[in-house]
């Protein structure tokens, strides 16, 4: 394949950077146009939202584990309209459930995957000096800040924060008479409309950068899998976010100026909201998992010191998951009242999406097979991703079968499934990514000791929280109910609910180990070598350490081979970086067979 990569000079001019001019504090740390600084800004902001989302989850679990009892320690801090005397009110519970999901999905996991790694990795992995549109990149982060502030502010307005679920089904979300929430819902809508522009500007930037700015020799099939998955994810964002924004604007008009898009009294159609929402919402699920799959592929190949098994199959699986992701949204609506014939077609497309997911799992197992596996902290998280994603994928088959979905729909079985994918999948992928690239970001290693403690606490507590939720669902425990004990048949499950809540508090507390290690290591961690994981990809071998503005001090790198040439017989070591020129003849080296040519040529 021909190389379309542009030279560094051709694009650096647009980057507005000047090697000889020292940037002010504000241009360096606040309104930076450097993709690496913007990645760090996204990282800190979204870790903060991860913490907020976790605290909200803790409050939800308090109500379910200890219903009607005052929240300990912080209970007196709550107002009389949320939790008087520390006892959570039903309307506050609805807000907690809604805002937990909203913060986690839109403000934590999505930016932690796309904002952080799209920014940090793409230019470094393809050998580009920066993003194609650095100022647009700055805007992408700073657009997201007011969105986050508005969403947080909604807790403090009259009526409280939005309480119609993160899915905001109309008419509950469209009419304050039904929900008791007006301003909170309006802020929720405005915040997400603004946030959408942040995602869109990011997506445009990632796509343009990858298409135009790959270094010479960086063919499509020599691209590392994180970059591939971020490329495909960006297309999903570009096509899905405008759909959501359109729906949000319609809902905002229903809520504020009296339109009736989703109001049956004015010939509006409540199901239209669900179609719009899930037409965005299902690709969104893949937006939240594909980048994590890319990060995990990188870590597994590196720490198993072995080429990724079936590189082309992995790329094709990413693309086919993304493609199929557009034709499955109706599986969220099996019980919604839409035409049952549609249910059949959505069931078949949904169940087919299990195939590329299975291919990815088998290829990760194939990568480990006959490897030389190093159990460093990033690898532990990456392996946990695989082990947990298997559970999340398999539990998805239950609800993909529309008849079996009838009893488990809207129960804790679904809550278990989503958390096996979003926490067991995405968040373990994020931990793998942060612990792996931390030395490149901050020039220091994260503490392996604290990292291992954090990992083991997390994996045990996580499973103690979410695995029994399958069982709750099978005992017909509905989701989003404030007081399960109001149903007599759910009363025997109180013990299990309390168990889950205690495990959840341990899980949340365990994350403080990570937070401490993160900031401690940033300043006091062991200084990292240039290439601590003996990696092949350009960010470790060609960029500065840590990379400065302009990324590649020695000039644009040239790429000679695929990204996963670990344990190649061409090299005496167990890795062979992408930028090292091939030697014509090497004494003692085993001649390569044609079948083992590096991928992509």
């Amino acid at each position, binding site marked *: 394949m021909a190389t379309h990569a542009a030279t560094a000079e051709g694009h650096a001019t647009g980057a507005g950077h000047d090697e000889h001019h020292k940037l002010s504090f504000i241009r360096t740390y606040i309104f930076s146009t450097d993709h690496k600084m913007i990645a760090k800004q996204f990282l800190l902001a979204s870790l903060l939202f991860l913490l907020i989302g976790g605290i909200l989850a803790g409050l939800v679990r308090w109500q379910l584990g200890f219903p009607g009892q005052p929240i300990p320690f912080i209970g007196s801090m709550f107002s009389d309209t949320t939790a008087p005397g520390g006892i959570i009110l039903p309307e506050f519970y609805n807000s907690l459930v809604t805002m937990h999901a909203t913060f986690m999905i839109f403000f934590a996991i999505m930016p932690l995957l796309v904002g952080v790694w799209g920014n940090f990795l793409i230019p470094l992995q393809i050998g580009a000096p920066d993003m194609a549109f650095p100022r647009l990149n700055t805007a992408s982060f700073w657009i997201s800040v007011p969105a986050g502030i508005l969403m947080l502010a909604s807790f403090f307005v009259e009526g409280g924060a939005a309480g119609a679920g993160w899915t905001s089904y109309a*008419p509950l979300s469209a009419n304050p008479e039904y929900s008791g929430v007006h301003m909170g819902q309006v802020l929720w809508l405005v915040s997400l409309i603004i946030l959408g522009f942040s995602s869109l500007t990011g997506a445009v930037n990632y796509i343009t950068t990858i298409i135009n700015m790959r270094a010479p020799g960086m063919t499509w099939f020599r691209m590392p899998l994180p970059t591939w998955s971020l490329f495909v994810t960006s297309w999903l964002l570009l096509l899905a976010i405008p759909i959501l924004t359109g729906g949000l604007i319609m809902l905002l008009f229903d809520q504020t100026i009296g339109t009736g898009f989703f109001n049956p009294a004015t010939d509006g159609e409540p199901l239209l909201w669900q179609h719009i929402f899930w037409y965005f919402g299902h690709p969104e699920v893949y937006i939240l998992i594909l980048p994590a799959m890319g990060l995990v592929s990188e870590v597994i190949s590196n720490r198993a010191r072995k080429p990724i098994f079936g590189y082309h199959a992995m790329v094709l699986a990413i693309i086919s998951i993304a493609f199929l992701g557009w034709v499955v949204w109706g599986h969220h609506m099996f019980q919604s009242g839409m035409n049952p014939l549609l249910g059949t077609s959505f069931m078949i497309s949904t169940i*087919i999406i299990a195939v590329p997911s299975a291919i990815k799992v088998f290829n990760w197992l194939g990568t480990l097979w006959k490897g030389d596996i190093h159990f460093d902290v990033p690898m532990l998280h990456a392996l946990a991703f695989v082990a947990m994603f298997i559970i999340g994928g398999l539990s998805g088959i239950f609800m993909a*079968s529309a008849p079996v979905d009838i009893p488990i729909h809207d129960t804790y079985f679904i809550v278990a499934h989503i958390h096996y994918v979003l926490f067991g999948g995405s968040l373990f992928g994020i931990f793998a990514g942060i612990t792996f690239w931390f030395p490149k970001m901050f020039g220091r290693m994260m503490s392996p000791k604290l990292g291992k403690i954090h990992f083991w606490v997390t994996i045990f507590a996580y499973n103690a929280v979410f695995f029994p939720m399958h069982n709750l669902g099978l005992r*017909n425990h509905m989701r989003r109910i404030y007081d399960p004990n109001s149903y007599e048949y759910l009363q025997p499950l109180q013990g299990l609910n309390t168990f889950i809540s205690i495990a959840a508090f341990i899980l949340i507390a365990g994350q403080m180990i990570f937070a401490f290690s993160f900031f401690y290591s940033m300043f006091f961690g062991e200084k990292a070598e240039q290439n601590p994981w003996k990696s092949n990809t350009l960010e470790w071998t060609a960029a500065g350490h840590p990379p400065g503005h302009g990324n590649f001090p020695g000039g644009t790198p040239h790429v000679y081979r695929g990204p996963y040439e670990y344990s190649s017989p061409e090299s005496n070591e167990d890795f062979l970086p992408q930028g090292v020129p091939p030697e014509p003849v090497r004494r003692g080296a085993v001649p390569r067979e044609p079948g083992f040519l590096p991928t992509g040529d």
Partner: protein
Amino acid sequence: MENWSWMLDESASSVGPQIDRLYYIILVITGIVFVATEVTLLYFLFKYRHREGHKAEYIHGNTKAEIIWTAIPALIVLAIALMSRGLWAEIKDPANVPADAMRVMLEAKQFEWNLTYPGPDGELRTGDDFTVRNRLDIPLDRPTVLEMTSVDVIHSFFVPDFRLKQDIVPGMAMQMWFQPTRAGVFPIGCAELCGIGHTRMRGTLTVHSPADYQAWVNEQVQGAASAAEPAAPAPATQAQ
């Protein structure tokens, strides 16, 4: 420990055993895949752990393996889809609603279920209809069709023991049928977040023997006649 079970409670409707059977088929298939993949993963982690002087094998993949592990999952999931298809149509296709069923109107609103029954004449929308709140009482010997509407937001009518769940969308006339297989009292819940009182939007479904059902209808009709004007639909007469 029964709370940790992956078994389902015994169902009480005609479609229940079929849904449960499909569930158990999927449980077995996914259970086998789960054990096989997780054990393989752990075995590889043990067998190929790092040892000094040992180097990984330089393998890029295997086309035959890719074909096999694409084809086998594809066949399995397609088989599950085909098995699901017929049952789905049987439950949800409007053409399969039994013609001889008893029809009951269900009006959902925040936060109650109002059920309007045909009176002694067996016909809905006649003067002898009566309405009961949060109680669905049906005879064992014939299927029931619910004609469902919502006056405000989306609710979801959920009868766990019957393996029944149907969202009720305002502005849409929906129906759902079922055939009970045993007498008893079963909980009804709302499965779609519908507002502040969502958690208390409950009801009970009572399946009577035919004779008991007739007695119950007579009791309700007398109650309604003494409490309300004859025009239908009568206001709710019985709060739970």
